[in-house]
């Protein structure tokens, strides 16, 4: 049997330990629950498996075949070949969590560098080396805010995506959090500060906001909000798209206490929503309340530089029921992709990338609203996603686009029922000018009919 070198040696090995059959090894399983086989097909050869999977694969259309202009925080980005070349070094990807630091210095140092880079781009003091994804990171941040402030009301924008809201609700319920929403300005798409002022109270542990927000809008009045939040003795938690940080102020400079985000964009593929990476950074003073793994610099017995997991007393394997989080396996290899990706970009590259995403976002929007029947919903400045209202039925438009191998915008109505007939479009550096022009031509065609 493949992957089981001792298959032909079973008899010999049994004999060496004075047993006569495999069954004897399973005598401790009560007969009543023993089974004899699994009702699954027998194993296929590698060739057959590959052929089978190729059939499945051919039922998908990837983003080289299907031009995607779908927003929602996940979009096709270009991943340099070097990233995969690094993450497929098998010393990295076949390793476990670095419990034995002496045998894991490579991964540990890379994770230290990841933490450094995430701290650097977010402008925060420290970062952990990953949570599951951006959504669970909001949940963990909410719990952390409560641990720090001992307060239990968590404020979120009413236009947080319903997926994230749902995850947050599930994370919040164990700690009995009350989750309240503040509204957004219907004109700008920015936070309705008046409303936030009204809602915030002494029970408020933290205010969560996103830059860019779910509409792609870059929040304008962070200083006002920051003052408001901190005067209330609450924490400011900012959710970011790391690829925007080349043009926008870092959350650290904006006064954030905790920064979270979805890091898939940093060198990981869309993977149908997998390969996620929960970014998590904060101020130093909150270090002992952080969830997740932290890699620290220390020294070895010869006083040479060395790295290890640190502050493990926060973690489940030491503190068990009183850990700051239950997380154990995280998204290590996605972090490795991220640190590789960021080092390939460098400061100059990240800046250019942000600019390009910003500019393509503007360009695409301008082209779309030139078309009859399409209009911009919010007039706030947006990054690489934006909301468009259509006079025609959006579902129908998407259906027609699909016939030209174009995947149109995300239908925001499914998250926000009041936003009828709206698209959330997204565009990135991965879309060439020709891609965009082709899209515009096709959508013009199908929406004219």
């Amino acid at each position: 049997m493949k992957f089981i070198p001792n298959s032909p040696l079973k008899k010999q090995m049994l004999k060496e330990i004075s047993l006569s059959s495999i069954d004897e090894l399973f005598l401790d399983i009560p007969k009543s629950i023993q089974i004899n086989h699994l009702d699954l097909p027998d194993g296929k050869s590698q060739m057959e498996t590959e052929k089978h999977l190729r059939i499945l694969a051919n039922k998908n259309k990837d983003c080289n075949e299907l031009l995607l202009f779908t927003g929602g925080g996940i979009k096709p980005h270009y991943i340099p070949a070097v990233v995969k070349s690094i993450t497929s070094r098998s010393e990295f990807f076949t390793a476990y969590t670095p419990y034995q630091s002496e045998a894991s210095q490579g991964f540990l140092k890379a994770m230290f560098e990841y933490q450094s880079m995430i701290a650097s781009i977010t402008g925060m003091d420290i970062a952990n080396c990953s949570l599951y994804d951006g959504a669970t990171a909001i949940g963990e941040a909410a719990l952390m805010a409560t641990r720090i402030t001992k307060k239990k009301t968590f404020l979120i924008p009413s236009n947080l995506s319903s997926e994230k809201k749902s995850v947050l609700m599930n994370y919040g319920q164990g700690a009995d959090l009350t989750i309240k929403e503040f509204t957004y300005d219907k004109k700008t798409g920015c936070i309705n500060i008046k409303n936030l002022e009204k809602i915030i109270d002494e029970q408020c542990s933290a205010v969560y906001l996103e830059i860019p927000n779910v509409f792609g809008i870059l929040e304008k009045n962070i200083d006002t909000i920051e003052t408001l939040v901190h005067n209330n003795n609450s924490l400011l938690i900012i959710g970011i798209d790391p690829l925007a940080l080349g043009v926008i102020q870092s959350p650290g400079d904006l006064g954030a206490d905790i920064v979270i985000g979805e890091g898939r964009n940093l060198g990981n593929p869309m993977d149908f929503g997998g390969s996620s990476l929960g970014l998590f950074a904060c101020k130093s003073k909150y270090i002992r309340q952080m969830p997740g793994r932290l890699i620290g610099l220390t020294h070895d017995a010869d006083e040479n530089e060395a790295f290890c997991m640190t502050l493990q007393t926060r973690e489940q394997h030491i503190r068990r029921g009183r850990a700051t989080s239950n997380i154990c396996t995280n998204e290590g290899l996605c972090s490795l992709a991220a640190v590789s990706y960021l080092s390939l970009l460098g400061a100059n590259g990240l800046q250019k990338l942000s600019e390009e995403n910003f500019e393509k976002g503007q360009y695409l929007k301008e082209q779309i609203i030139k078309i009859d029947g399409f209009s911009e919903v919010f007039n706030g400045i947006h990054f690489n996603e934006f909301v468009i209202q259509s006079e025609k039925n959006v579902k129908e438009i998407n259906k027609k686009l699909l016939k030209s191998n174009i995947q149109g915008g995300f239908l925001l109505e499914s998250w926000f029922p009041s936003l009828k007939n709206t698209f959330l479009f997204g565009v990135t550096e991965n879309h060439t000018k020709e891609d965009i022009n082709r899209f515009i031509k096709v959508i013009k065609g199908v929406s004219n009919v």
Partner: protein
Amino acid sequence: MFKSAVYSEPFLNELHSKPIEKPTPHKSIPSTLIRKKPLDLPNLDETQIIRHFHHLSQMNFGVDTGIYPLGSCTMKYNPRINEVISNWDKFSCIHPYQDESTVQGTLQMMYELEQMLKEITGMYAFSLQPAAGAHGEFLGMILTKQYHTSKNESDRINVIVPDTAHGTNPASASMAGYNVIELPSTKDGAVDVDVLEKTINDKTACFMLTNPNTLGIFESDIDEIARIVHDAGSLLYYDGANMNAIMGKARPGDMGFDIVHLNLHKTFATPHGGGGPGSGPVGVGKKLEQFLPIPRVIKKKENYHLSNDFKESIGKIKQFYGNVSVLLKAYCYITLMGGNGLKEASEVAVLNANYMKEKILQKGSYELPFRSLRKHEFVLSCESLLKKKGIRAMDIAKHLLDNGVHPPTVYFPLIVKEALMIEPTETESKYDLDCYIETLCKIADEDTEKIKDSPYNTPVRRVNEVDATKKPVLTWNQI
């Protein structure tokens, strides 16, 4: 003879960097938001980056480097074909909101994977959403809550875990708002049925267990345990980290477990990636099905759909649908192995463990607390070595590193003093098992000083973890 590669590799930001260019961002960005301080990342060339990580990689130990019998973690060989397939654009470059008609292949894979996992575990339905084992546990606890709430029994506020439980079990339970009650094991290393019966009551929401447990011992009283738990109106939760012991031999569903999580990155050979991404699908019995996260993959005629049409669902535990590439690798693995292969995997995993256990015990340096027959792993104690020679489990671990092999899990489960928890898995050859046994036993005879000072052949010598916590340095800027 083994020596790890050693490079005194500078930090990325110590390598020669090109000058950082001044930001020239677009005018239309609000001035309060525009980045003013230049980004602080080094500007490097590919050659520099490739070499940097190349050097780091050689200072890291993986399953490809050598035997990695980390108990509880099931570090088996990760088939290369799965890496190739999951890397195909057709699988990896698809958007979660693409039209369903353009992702039928992946939806079919997910649907079929659920069917496979149902058959393997005997559960009624599965969710593939959780990103890891602990995440699955947390989902399990949320489902437990929802279940009891739906029956108007929200006052069930306790979750019982054995004292051998993995740390994530109590952590997940308490994150979901439960009180954790720890159950002491019998001298046999199993659940004490009497104590369980006394502990459990109408405040109990769930009993979390893995079977075989973390000592590698199969809980033979499982029928009785399930009866007690269910009679008390509680749920029975299965931590699937040890599923590698019993595939094709027994199923948690048949044992009476109501909720199960699996670790695809353990049992199903997806690589652990130095700490993820993992995947911790959760299976449930019929009575819990309606609470599973949305969306769920359903099949209508020949087509697959993502359905949100489950009113009692707990909603979402993660954005989108799970770590899909990990799911795909597990799907490939099950396809490769088949029902017969999975059974063989468990049989040989158990054989390998018992073979090692017996051979090591024959040499007399280590003790095996508790019952003798183990499943896919076993826990030794080196307490007598500590008493006799002052050698601790950690010392042994470090000196194993000098031999080019990875140590077992140490100091877990907590009820064994100076624990060495060994799980060879089925993918190791007898040759490697024999070498490991010999090395482990030789270490017991070595000079205490030498072992205390180990490791010698690793990129660094013994790492001072205590100093790391004193004044934590977590980034370049904190150095």
